[in-house]
């Protein structure tokens, strides 16, 4: 094994550790929301700094790899992918924190309605993030494209959840603040799915050297 391969392997391990941390954060944010558990929500908020420091550590490592090893071809694409995946993960973790902040606010009032679409949306987003990380580890462009395809479904669920919440707002203005918070939460999960999509676009780039974002289709 080249000394450089060990460095790449180490970078991959760091990313996976960060990914696992972020998955936990999403999972706990869903739990905090559905179980109306303020303590769990607070724990997610407090754990965010661990994700942030992983981001800094990975940044440092990728910059060092470029400076010291001058990666080329697939190695370069890997380092570039790592540099773009890391902030996506960090943002996803921030969104989990946002979910928890809204959940804490919601917990101060009675529940507006039983949650139906948002949990589905949340599980979808969580799944997509997990699969995006799997696709990255396996450098699997097929799985990456499957994840990207699921983003439309998530968008649909978000829209559906928003329309339903709108009816609550129209019905009684006292519902507005809670309905808006739930709308935000729907949006946060939708943004997590977008993050997963962005990660998957980098996985395709890593595996095939092909840029598929902003292309409309993949005719390039």
């Amino acid at each position, binding site marked *: 094994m080249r000394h450089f391969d060990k460095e790449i392997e180490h970078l991959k391990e760091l990313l996976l550790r960060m990914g696992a941390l972020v998955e936990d954060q999403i999972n706990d944010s869903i739990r905090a929301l559905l179980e109306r558990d303020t303590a769990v929500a607070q724990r997610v908020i407090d754990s965010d700094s661990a994700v942030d420091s992983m981001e800094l550590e990975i940044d440092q490592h990728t910059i060092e790899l470029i*400076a*010291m*090893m001058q990666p080329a071809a697939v190695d370069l694409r890997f380092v570039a992918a790592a540099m773009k995946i890391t902030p996506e993960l960090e943002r996803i973790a921030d969104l989990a924190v946002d979910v928890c902040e809204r959940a804490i606010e919601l917990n101060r009032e009675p529940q507006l309605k039983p949650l139906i679409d948002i949990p589905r949306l949340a599980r979808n987003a969580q799944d997509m993030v997990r699969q995006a990380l799997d696709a990255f580890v396996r450098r699997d462009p097929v799985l990456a494209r499957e994840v990207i395809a699921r983003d439309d479904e998530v968008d649909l669920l978000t829209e559906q959840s928003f329309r339903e919440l709108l009816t609550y707002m129209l019905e009684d203005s006292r519902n507005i603040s809670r309905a808006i918070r739930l709308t935000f939460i729907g949006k946060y999960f939708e943004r997590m799915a977008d993050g997963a999509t962005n990660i998957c676009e980098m996985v395709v780039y890593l595996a095939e050297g092909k840029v598929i974002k902003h292309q409309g289709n993949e005719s390039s």
Partner: protein
Amino acid sequence: MSTTTVDVAAPTPAPARLAAPGAPAKIVVRDFNFHYGEAKVLHGITLDIPRNQVTALIGPSGCGKSTFLRSINRMNDIIPGARGEGLIEVAGQDVYAPNVDVVTLRRRIGMVFQKSNPFPKSIYENIAYGMRIGGENDKRVLDEVVEKSLKRAALWTEVKDRLNGSALALSGGQQQRLCIARALAVDPEVLLMDEPASALDPIATQKIEELVYELKENYTIVIVTHNMQQAARVSDRTAFFMLGKLVEVDETRTIFMNPKEKLTEDYITGRFG
């Protein structure tokens, strides 16, 4: 040689910067000057070279990095009019002290040159030679040292079936690794490498670089290279020389990511002109 064209601050780095964290100094250099006749080519070099690390010396041609390297095992002594002053200590011993036996010194401080220079003998004899002139004639001992040295130099699997074949029949990269094996055979503490890969193709270069990286586990290595990327890849610390002065020495990652001196930055980013 003029030293007035570029303002290089007198190299008196603070002790904190000299200390290499976690690694005691194998080579200690204090205010070392070197002259070729009237020309002063090294000015007050002060640095510590840590044990079991790779220290790269970089700088433009004529900056004194090779002269400095060759001062460490007194290879410059053979040049008429050459003289050094100041202190170079290897493992606590002043290498310029009057009682130093230069042959013994060079045994402790091995050297590998830019152009591989195997003896026109068999692969086996190239390695065994240093032992033989040191008085070792036991075939079993020699066999063992030959095998161990070739393994350490990552050459064993390629040559083990033709140890009695001529060393000159090896490829350039293999010859260079043979020279490294030869240097290792006498069990040196320090390995000086003067552009060991500059005459090699990229694959052979990569093998040498991997080798350097592995060898530091057992040896203290000082390597002169014109290839800055190579310095970045293989070394733990980098010393930047210019016009006979040490401009900056620090961890390689610092030198290549955030050097303190503008001169260093200009050199490693190719902005000299």
